[in-house]
């Protein structure tokens, strides 16, 4: 069964997202809403990583490198932030890309959980998808608000 590949992907991508949210938040701390919301959203991903533990115990977990389907797209996360208003916009956009990877990962796991009639996994996948959507909604909201000023008038 290849579910372990996706459990590994979920684990890895959620951890990357959480770390990247923290990096972006701290790096743009002069925008307090970015700082504090990124911290809160990173907490969502931490929770998902914790919730994955019993699943990983049951299905195993495979990480990139020794798997049959190695990563072609390397979503390494954000180690540092850009500066200025356009930099903030780009960083938020990168977070959105990472979040989308997480969301589709949960979508795939959700499908497998239905096929397996695994109630526990289904419940985790559903709730994690919902929380990931909240992360994406905030990123989208914040980018929309910031875009005109950043692109048209920022120094």
């Amino acid at each position: 069964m290849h579910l372990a590949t996706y459990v590994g992907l979920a684990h890895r991508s959620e951890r990357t997202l959480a770390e990247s949210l923290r990096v972006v938040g701290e790096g743009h701390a002069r925008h307090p809403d970015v700082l504090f919301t990124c911290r809160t959203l990173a907490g969502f991903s931490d929770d998902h990583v914790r919730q994955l533990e019993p699943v990983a115990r049951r299905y195993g977990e495979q990480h990139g490198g020794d798997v049959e389907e190695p990563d072609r797209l390397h979503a390494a996360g954000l180690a540092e932030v850009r500066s200025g208003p356009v930099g903030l916009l780009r960083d938020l956009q990168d977070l959105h890309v990472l979040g989308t990877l997480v969301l589709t990962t949960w979508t795939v796991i959700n499908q497998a959980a239905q096929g397996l009639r695994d109630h526990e996994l289904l419940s985790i996948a559903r709730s994690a998808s919902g929380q990931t959507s909240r992360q994406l909604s905030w990123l989208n909201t914040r980018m929309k608000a910031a875009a005109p000023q950043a692109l048209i008038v920022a120094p």
Partner: protein
Amino acid sequence: MSRGPPAPARASAARPTSMTNRPPRTRIRLGTEPRSSRARRARLDLRTALVGSTVGHMDRIADVWGPRTPHGKGTVWPARVDEYLADGLSEDEVDRWVPSACVLCSNGCGCDIAVKDGRMVGVRGRATDVVNHGRLGPKGLYGSTPWASSPDRLTRPLVREAGQLVETDWDTAMGRVVEVSRRLLAEKGPLTHGFYSTGQLFAEEYYVLGVIGKAGLGTPHMDGNTRLCTATSAAAFKESFGADGQPGSYTDVEHCDALFLYGHNMAETQTVLWMRVLDRTRSPDPPVVVCVDPRRTPVAVEAERTGGVHLAPRVGTNLALMNGLTRELFANGWVDERWVRDHTLGVEELRGIVEPYTPEVVARTCGVDADDLRRAARIFGESRDVLSTVLQGFYQSHQATASAVAVHNLHLLRGLIGRPGSGVLQMNGQPTAQNNRECGADGDLPGFRNWENPRHVGELAELWNVDPLTIPHWAPPTHAMQIFGYAEEGSIGLLWVVGTNPAVSMPESARIRRILGGDQCFVVVQDLFLTETARLADVVLPAAGWGEKTGTFTNTNRVVHLSEKAVEPPGEARSDLEIFLMYADAMDFRDRDGAPLVPWREPEEVFDAWREASRGRPVDYTGLTYARLRGPTGIPWPVTEHAPDGTDRLYHDGVFPTRTDECETYGHDLLTGAVVTEQEHRAMRPDGRAFLKGAHHTPPHEEPGPEYPMLYTTGRTVYQFHTRTKTGRSPSLRAAAPDAWVELSEVDAARLGVSEGDVVRVESPRGAIEVRARVGRVRPGTVFAPFHYGSWDLDDADPEHQHRQANELTMTVWDPVSKQPYFKTAACRVVRVRGGDGPAPAPTTAASAPVGGGVPGTSGGAPTTTRLTDTPGYPDDPAVDAAGGTGGR
């Protein structure tokens, strides 16, 4: 048309014919006995008082709320007329009485301005007004008029020359503004313009400002200091009910069985509404009061007196407390399941969210007693009718919108909304904040329109005859804190500040001073005085104030008043409306057909234009005219063909403006502020049902630690308003609360070796103040500081070292949904600096009262008069109906 209502002593003879002529209702009924000897004297006065006679010359500094007129549940609140005249003048020496309403809090008490020799010399409450039944509070009495003839009024425009502000003429000053404005528009377009206005102008002025900004310039960067006082109220209404609009009415006070005050020290913030409450709680059949506040305020004392509960949660934990109360409703079967099914959405999600908040969990998080929480919940769950009021203790604290929404949830779960005695009053901080919300000069579109709804934007475009794309609606209008952020980075190059003092009132003052004083942004300030903010401006425009111009405004419970011009403004000062029109003319804003975009000249013309903008929206003014507003009382909107006399309370049918095509917002994630999309909203099919929304409690943004071990919170005193621009120029009010202080609990004071009146240094990671300490009634571990005190009246003020300004310490952080800054969640430390030379300058009459003795009582206000008069019938008052009267509808 007579100017204003008759003198109260002759009220029955000259009462306007539209009011019901009824026998006197005033009954001198005495409730639970007050204890002080002064109160006993007042009682004797009352006992012998006859209707129409003067109770006495009262010192309303010492006696903040005046004599009681207790009355039974469901009966009309008796009239009582309060009056202040300066310089020992008597009524017959007054030349004219000019009708208006008070602007020194959000209550909006109907009053008449006394004019003598072209000067405002005092005020008198209007017995016929639905809001105050004749009463006025200390701020209104003593503070309404002295500022106007203060020698330091701005009378000429100022411009900055070689670093100094110098007097000039209007053409020069406005010429500079227009030059910068045109240059920025040509270089980078309208996003270079920001407006930061107020809760002090009239509706007409906000509407014109809104049209200039949204359709003339096309900038989304418009907000008011309403963001600091009332944004959460509006945001919470929108999240729960689909649109802004106060559901309840002050008349609910007469009908409720329980009264919950959440973070609302009503006794000091709305003294006249508190008189209304006291006249019920001091009657033989009082409602039970529940108070949520970290200080032992007069409200907390009243809660204990009436057999209610005082819950003093740790600062920053309001939402945990609310989740606990909500859980109790579910756990004890106090939910009206059928009403909830028919009229709400989201009950199962809410049940899930509050499930972990058991009384024990809440007790640990909030530092309250679990049984007290249970008792408060039981009072809510088992009282027939409950009125809840909410203010800054929730709005300016952590998780503001989620906490305010939780109050709605409690009412919705029991179906306690829309009937006399059952309602919610999300209060406002300022007298005309409501109009800024309605008219679109803050972060909203006029008429509670939804910026995400193309049809709503199209309606405005049609009304103003501009391209819909001119009106910025790609994202929510920019909130105040973000406007200052853009001004800081210089992408806003022209910041126009109108009638507000951000250098004192915004969080993290040092940063705000830097932004206003820097070269990266051209700052225009329009005000009555050379405020701390005006001193940092590039151009200062002298404005006319209340009583010096005509316009309308709307109080917290939707009552619209017309405030007439009583006197001429000093020197070359001009009304805010005239100033905006001058700018619009100079900029030559045109509509799509080349006609002037802002064609109006007189306030009444603007009012008529605004009325059209409100047509068909929840905030419908279509039945209101200046002529209608010249009657005996203010009128609550909506006023329409179907409700020609206005509407006392909303949602009597349990139908809310949540339809996707009607609502003001599709809603937000209460935890993050992410917007709900139109498709998501439509898929929920709210169709008139209210939303039950919840969120988990999260820790506040700054928690006490080893370096800063205490919690810091800010607030008001009863004698001052905002940054004291008006109240600080009233001798009676100034003397009552002359200087800043901080309050410490007895336990903390003992630990720190601080005695009453000692000078202490209070520090946060952002700044420090040095003020005298009151050993008072604040929750242990918490420091309270009043935010009124800047430096305009200090001779030796160093602008870089504000030693008494509370916002030196506060954080730049805001609520994710309402974007209201959090003034009440910071960490601090306290160090004793030196011994004092007497008690702290904190008033003794209310929440700042000392714990120990030996502090002389606050007193010494100029004499005022208080008269008991015939109580007229009030339109739409349910108590009139209950008594079989004909005045109500």
